[in-house]
């Protein structure tokens, strides 16, 4: 399973803060993103950042590992 988390402005558009997505061998961050963007198009309009296991990831071609925690995030506005 991939544990997907959403926060703040993204949750407002997905309606849920956490999802479990079936892990598939060969799954990349990009594949997961596209799958979720199809399901939640309005949320992904404002997604501009992603993290895997709490680390910023810029290269979406990285393969995911089973049981990873993946977050798709809107631009930060803290501070």
């Amino acid at each position, binding site marked *: 399973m991939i544990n997907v988390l959403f*926060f703040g402005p993204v949750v407002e558009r997905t309606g849920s803060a956490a999802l479990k997505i079936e892990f598939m061998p060969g799954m990349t961050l990009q594949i997961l993103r596209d799958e979720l963007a199809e399901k939640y198009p309005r949320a992904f309009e404002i997604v501009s950042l992603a993290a895997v296991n709490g680390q910023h990831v810029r290269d979406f071609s990285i393969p995911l590992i089973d049981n990873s925690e993946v977050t798709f995030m809107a631009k930060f506005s803290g*501070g």
Partner: protein
Amino acid sequence: MKDAVRIQEEDFSQDEEITALKTSSQRMGGIATFLGCARDFSEGREVSRISFEAYGSMALSEMKQLRLDAIEKFKLLDARIVHRICTVTAGDNIVFIAAGAEHRAPALEACRYMIDELKERVPIWKKEITPEGDAWVSPHP
């Protein structure tokens, strides 16, 4: 003594943070701080309250890394970062950054670096609660 990097609901005391910062060295000649506060207006709209949400575990580890990066980059003697996650009203404290160095220039530069980087790197989102309704804040591009 409280941790040098914290996410917390409650307010903080600058006197307490500065006292803690100073304990790390007797050679600290300059301490620069930045305090971010809630304003009652934003882009012309009246704001009653501001609430914050964080991806807590990642936010804390990014803040810890940011502190270490600043210490190394500016040869600081110590640094502290505190961010509140809660709902605040005008005048309330939100974020506190402190940088201590032998001399003033690196302390002041590091303080600016940390608040600028915090806004880029740390997963925290702000929602403005106004008489006309709530809105998540989009930072300027």
